[in-house]
């Protein structure tokens, strides 16, 4: 993605700040431990916040690269688990149809 070609950080810098603050909170530590049995890792949100601000201030190519790599890694992590079912190409045919007259269920 070209630096001057209309690129912007994937999220507003305010969103990175909010995620970092939420991740760093005591409440999130407790909830993350309750779910995963380990402490959360929040440093990447801080790095992304710093990169976002650096892009906003200096249009740094390094900041752009760092943000894109970080978000690509998040997307890959979310997709690494295989799906149990096949995705649809279109919604169910009956979704918008009226309920059947015979409503025995």
């Amino acid at each position, binding site marked *: *993605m070209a630096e001057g070609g209309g*690129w*912007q*950080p*994937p*999220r*507003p810098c305010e*969103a990175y700040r*909010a*995620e970092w603050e*939420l991740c760093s909170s005591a409440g*999130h530590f*407790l*909830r993350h*431990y*309750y*779910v*995963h*049995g380990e402490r959360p890792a929040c440093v990447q949100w801080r790095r992304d916040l710093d990169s976002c601000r650096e892009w906003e201030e200096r249009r740094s190519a390094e900041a752009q690269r760092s943000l*894109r790599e970080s*978000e*690509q890694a998040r*997307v890959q992590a*979310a997709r690494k*688990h*295989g*799906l*149990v*079912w*096949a*995705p*649809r190409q*279109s*919604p*169910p045919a*009956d*979704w*918008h149809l*009226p*309920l*059947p007259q015979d*409503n025995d*269920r």
Partner: protein
Amino acid sequence: MEQLGLADPYVKLLLDAMKHSGCAVNKERHFSCEDCNGNVSGGFDASVSQIVLCQNNICNQAHMNRVVTHELIHAFDHCRAHVDWFTNVRHLACSEVRAANLSGDCSLLNEILRLHFGLKQHHQTCVRDRAIRSILAVRNISKEVAQKAVDEVFESCFNDHEPFGRIPHNKTYARYAHRDFQNRDRYYSNI
């Protein structure tokens, strides 16, 4: 009768995601309030694409919000994937794992209120147990078969957080998730 909780951030995100997937929800068509047997709170009837809310078993607005969220997750799965609800117990198990995981059913507070005390990774124990219970409520199969199905799909389905992108532990997380969903065009065009 409690309100459907349409302003709840969990529900708002699910409704937006379903509309984006071609399954806009119509209150009159896709929800039904009924009296139910036992202590079931609700269900998703895939044969007619309708959410059933058990009005005699829903205690308060917070409970209503959670039940609507739970059933909308099933509706969302029905909308976005070929889920074989009736003959593939692994598919059913997957959607039940997701609903227990993402609806708030297994929040620390809700488990404490059920007198289930546990901390380290207890959320996952709760998700497994509630998924098995939900399967047994709608399928005439043994607990062992239900448990095996949950075990087989758990790794994949526990980590499938769509459309939230994260486990929404409370309304703050759900609001952040909704913000991210609304921002998705900018996000994917700039990574």
